[in-house]
């Protein structure tokens, strides 16, 4: 969301050819006295790979405010470009292009994200650096950046613990993450992530819970 919560998801720089995915993710930031942040953010998306280097995804974004009203707030388009083969260079690289249009206000946003990942044995580290431009009649035109980091230990396919760090215009936070995947048959997987991010400054919610469920087929 434009000027929305910086805590969302860490993107990996990989594309799996011939894959489609249905994704649901939700974010529950704790109430803040200094801003009217939403109680819940829900994102539902459908994505498909176009080749072994390009993946596109369409999102619907809804928000529930502190009074319990739920509204469709925006739609988003994402395009991911895998730049290098996994393990080919010192680190793996990708780019993420995003466009967002709010439905209830004249606010648009475009962003480019640099995605990078590096393995150290069973540990993986993933970094996302986003450059974001917002514009529209209902927002001051502005340029902003956001950064996210995820470290995870590949203990087993079903369970990978780790931690995440997010920083951006509206929040800076750090916290634990667990994720895993369940095989449901030939090229059918259910991937899940759950994280609890603790705010590190006054502008951030004290705690933000995030959850993701992704069906890959």
């Amino acid at each position, binding site marked *: 969301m434009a000027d929305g919560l910086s805590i969302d998801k860490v993107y990996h720089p990989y594309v799996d050819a*011939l894959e489609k995915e249905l994704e649901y993710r939700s974010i529950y930031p704790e109430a803040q006295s200094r801003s009217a942040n939403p109680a819940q953010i829900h994102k539902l998306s459908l994505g498909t790979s176009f080749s072994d280097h390009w993946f596109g995804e369409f999102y619907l974004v809804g928000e529930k405010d502190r009074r319990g009203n739920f509204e469709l707030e925006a739609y988003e388009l994402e395009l991911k470009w895998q730049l*290098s083969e*996994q393990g*080919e260079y010192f*680190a793996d690289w990708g780019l993420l292009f995003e466009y967002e249009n709010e439905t209830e206000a004249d606010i648009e946003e475009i962003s480019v994200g640099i995605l990078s990942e590096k393995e150290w044995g069973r540990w993986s580290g993933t970094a996302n650096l986003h450059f974001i431009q917002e514009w529209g009649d209902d927002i001051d035109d502005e*340029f902003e950046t956001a950064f996210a980091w995820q470290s995870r230990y590949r203990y087993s396919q079903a369970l990978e613990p780790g931690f995440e760090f997010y920083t951006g215009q509206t929040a800076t936070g750090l916290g634990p993450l667990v994720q895993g995947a369940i095989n449901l048959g030939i090229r059918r997987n259910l991937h899940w992530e759950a994280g609890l991010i603790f705010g590190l400054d006054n502008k951030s919610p004290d705690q933000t819970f995030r959850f993701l469920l992704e069906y890959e087929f």
Partner: protein
Amino acid sequence: MNPSRVLFISLIGFCSVYCITAFAASQEFELRIREHLFYPSNLEVPANQKIRLVIINEDATPEEFESYELNREKVIPGNSRTVIFIGPLSPGEYVFFGEFYPRTAQGKIIAR
């Protein structure tokens, strides 16, 4: 700092790392997929070295090389080839399978 300067410095850093690491050499090995089987099914590679693995799919149907132990998954369309990079691996065995035909397409990489 000015946002455009942040963007400029970040892009320069990104391009530098990308270019510096773009010519890393590695030893090459070959794996073939035929009638939904991997040949060889046991592939020995040197430990502690980066490996360039060429996978040739001789079948008309796609297959996906997948290994949680190696942290790799890659689709190889029918009658085509691809390259994956693995390692450096500690000595040991690393199982892999074909996700389209997991009952038959199985193997392991043995790092010595």
